[in-house]
């Protein structure tokens, strides 16, 4: 029964977070951008639960729970907004939703 150093969990969280940032900045499809946001939220959840293990308190689990609830509410409203944008602009490419530009 080996044991895993805590820094490995935090490094994994950092890797997932930076992959989420990369997806958020580089992808053009709005649904993929939204999924990268969810990936970032998951990475932060992993950090919360890891710190809760280190400090031996349950508060980190509670914060992760609230992050999940907020992510659910955000996903619902965000996807409704995406549906409305698609209905009006007929495209899911964020570069094409630029009628207010210049």
């Amino acid at each position, binding site marked *: *029964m*080996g*044991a*895993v*150093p*805590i*820094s*490995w*969990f*935090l*490094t*994994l969280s*950092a*890797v*997932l*977070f*930076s*992959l*989420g*940032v*990369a*997806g958020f*900045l*580089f992808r*053009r*499809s709005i*649904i*993929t951008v939204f*999924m990268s946001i*969810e*990936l970032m939220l*998951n990475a932060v*959840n*992993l950090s919360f*639960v*890891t710190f*809760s*293990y280190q400090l*031996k308190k*349950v508060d980190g*689990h509670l914060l*992760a*729970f*609230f992050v*999940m*609830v*907020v992510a*659910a*509410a955000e*996903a619902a*409203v965000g*996807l*409704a*907004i*995406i*549906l*409305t944008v698609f209905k009006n602009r007929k495209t*899911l*490419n964020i*570069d094409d939703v630029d009628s207010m530009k210049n």
Partner: protein
Amino acid sequence: MDVILFLVFAIIAVVCAINVVVQTHPISSAISLVGVMGSLAVLYLLLGAEFIAAAQVIVYAGAIMVLFVFVIMLLNAGAEVQKGRSPMARFLGLPALVMLLGLLAYFVQRLFPRSDMVHFGGFTGGSPKDIGMALFTTYLLPFEATSILILIAIVGAIVLARKELD
């Protein structure tokens, strides 16, 4: 044993996360994101967070991602077409990502000594009973606030997605 479990599921999580960012078709990204969430649920179990692991699968992977998959199927979103990437993004993108990652990993390794070890069963305070006790005593105000937040989200989603009565 714990090391093997961690390595296997961490590698699955990273590969699926790379897949989310790299795949062109949104449905492949969505399925890969479900894979990330599943492997994170296993890592939560390793950290003694059994309720959060179950909530992750039930809420995140089983409801939120189903919502994503629904929207992708309803909109019939095809594979993304890459047009007009700026040269700065193309050449500085990957090095900037690697630099960000390196900075974060370095600071994590500096700040957290290797004496803190995680083994399965090290923390037993993550049972539903403990979560319930904390949720309804210390965190009662955030709990009530999130219930109002969910109500706002429901009303907002229904208003945005209904048919216009012209």
